[in-house]
């Protein structure tokens, strides 16, 4: 039964302002974190059930009447739900201390919970219009969360994101309308049948292009990435972690792959287009990250580069490539979430995001520095951390498919990644301590606890990667590779 993934955050969000009237901090903190802990445990349970019993199709009933609410939980959805819940819990724990200096904590939690409900609904939906609606739920909540601090740069970033996101949704909606006109259905499996029966109409290719542009904008793939550095660097740190760690993957990568691959398969050069977009994103993201002085902007550009790796792996289209892409999606969510949370701790302690003004902070903030090293090395792909295995799988898939040139570029870009992450470490944490920061101390307990949780996940996933791949990543990749034929069988079409 998958409905708690949507119902729990939505119901809690709707009563959160009332809870905020009773208790400004304690009850909102307690209830939100309990809800996230429940969602994480439930996603582990649901994932195990999916592994043992196959995809689960849940239909809603109301006093004996069947409602047209069908939630499909397969291996791919289970992996995404686990990712959302894990990062969500870390962000909620971190927010206990971090959001203290913002007003209206209950409203913040309400918006965060709605964003989670939106992402969970998107992941569990099998209907392209419902998917679009939940995409909007998550997007609207994220506009509010980015601008939550009410600073000028935050409002500007939120507006920029809103405008570009509206363009993305216009593309997506137009494509949905044309697909509906072509096939007479909004269900992914039925649309897939209709499109394959239409026998290669040019308009189907047009729809595919619109979906790639729309979801590509949401995923911030180059050249649709202009909004991301502003939005992700201006938002409060926990929200940057949610956006970079999860939202761009759910509303961009997940939606793109679910819709495009289910409907169109790997036909019409889709793989080549994705590989091209992937490699360009890897390079441009990495090169732009190198030139940044603002730590959050550097991390934001790094996200564009790492999304490129995921797209590249998906574009190869082989089982190994898809496996590597799924694993990198999961690993990047954890490591980038960790790094954004650490950047928030640095900003809160020093009042700046500029690397030039930091230096030697490892002595004052050992937990933040230590976990930052783990996160940086994980994303850069240093063994035995989790990011190493996922990048290795993507590179092996490229070599196996005889894309030697792309494999070489991706490997060299990995060195660039290591370079700019070492720059962050050296300029922020090592070297001589800037005297201005003599008074600062380590981040408060819950902020440190949440980053330790994610850093431990980076190490453990790296060390136990065969088990993680077998239990979580392979079922997701198998579901993805097989399209949703499994679901079609279950639904009885």
């Amino acid at each position: 039964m998958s409905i708690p993934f949507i119902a729990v955050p939505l119901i809690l969000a709707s009563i959160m302002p009332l809870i905020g009237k009773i208790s400004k901090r304690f009850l909102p903190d307690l209830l939100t974190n309990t809800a996230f802990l429940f969602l994480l445990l439930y996603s582990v349970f649901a994932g195990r059930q999916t592994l043992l019993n196959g995809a689960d199709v849940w239909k809603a009933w109301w006093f004996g009447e069947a409602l047209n609410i069908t939630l499909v939980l397969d291996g791919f959805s289970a992996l995404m739900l686990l990712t959302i819940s894990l990062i969500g819990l870390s962000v909620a724990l971190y927010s206990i201390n971090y959001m203290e200096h913002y007003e209206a904590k209950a409203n913040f939690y309400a918006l965060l919970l709605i964003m989670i409900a939106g992402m969970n609904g998107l992941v569990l939906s099998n209907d392209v219009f419902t998917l679009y609606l939940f995409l909007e739920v998550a997007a609207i909540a994220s506009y509010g969360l980015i601008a939550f601090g009410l600073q000028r740069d935050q409002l500007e970033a939120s507006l920029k994101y809103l405008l570009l996101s509206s363009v993305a949704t216009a593309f997506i909606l137009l494509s949905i309308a044309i697909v509906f006109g072509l096939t007479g259905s909004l269900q992914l499996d039925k649309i897939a049948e209709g499109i394959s029966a239409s026998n290669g109409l040019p308009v189907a290719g047009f729809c595919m292009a619109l979906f790639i542009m729309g979801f590509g904008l949401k995923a911030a793939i180059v050249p649709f990435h202009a909004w991301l550095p502003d939005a992700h660097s201006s938002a409060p740190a926990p929200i940057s972690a949610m956006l970079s760690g999860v939202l761009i993957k759910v509303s961009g990568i997940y939606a793109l792959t679910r819709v495009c691959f289910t409907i169109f398969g790997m036909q019409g050069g889709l793989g080549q287009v994705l590989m091209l977009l992937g490699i360009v994103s890897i390079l441009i993201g990495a090169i732009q990250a190198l030139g940044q002085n603002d730590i959050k902007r550097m991390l934001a550009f790094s996200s564009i580069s790492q999304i490129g790796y995921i797209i590249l792996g998906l574009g190869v289209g082989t089982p190994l490539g898809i496996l590597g892409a799924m694993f990198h999606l999961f690993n990047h969510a954890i490591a980038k979430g960790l790094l954004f949370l650490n950047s928030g701790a640095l900003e809160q302690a020093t009042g700046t995001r500029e690397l030039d003004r930091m230096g030697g902070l490892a002595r004052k903030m050992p937990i933040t520095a230590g976990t930052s090293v783990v996160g940086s090395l994980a994303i850069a792909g240093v063994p035995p951390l989790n990011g190493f295995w996922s990048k290795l799988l993507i590179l092996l898939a490229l070599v196996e498919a005889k894309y030697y040139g792309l494999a070489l570029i991706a490997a060299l870009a990995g060195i660039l990644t290591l370079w700019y992450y070492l720059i962050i470490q050296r300029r922020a944490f090592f070297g001589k301590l800037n005297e201005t920061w003599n008074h600062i101390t380590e981040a408060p307990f819950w902020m440190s606890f949440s980053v330790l949780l994610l850093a431990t996940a980076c190490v453990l996933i790296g060390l136990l990667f065969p088990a993680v791949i077998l239990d979580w990543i392979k079922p997701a990749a198998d579901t993805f590779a097989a399209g949703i034929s499994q679901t079609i069988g279950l639904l009885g079409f």
Partner: protein
Amino acid sequence: MHIFLLLGLVLCSILAVFFSDLLKAAISLAGASVFLALVLFEMGATYAGVFEISVVAGLITVLFIATISLTEKKEDAKHNKRMRLLFPLVFIGFILIDVLVMSQYLVKLSSLAGPAETGVFGQVFWGGRTFDLVAQIAIILAGVFCVLALFRKRSGDE
């Protein structure tokens, strides 16, 4: 009947553009959406009608009105006369393109598979698209909380 609905749609759309009062413009836009939804129902596109009436006429109008009611009324902006002349020209251009291009496109569409998911409003809205209602409730909540969060300083000052 079609002509009457179309005229209502065009009239409301023009009013939405020309009203300088944001509240009146938002209500005119909602009126245009209702007319558009009726046109869609009349032409048998029940699904599109349901989406139009529930998302645009209902939900977006609520958000518009909520936001407008929270903003301060400032002095009327100066209207550029050129912009006022530009709109009728763009409108006429749009009608010409519509007649010349879209009519051909619609002829092509008629040869494609007709929509399979049809039904009366109640069936489609309550029976066929129940899950969308959950998402729409979530969108309304998101919009309301965004307004509460982003206007919190203003309400605190007052």
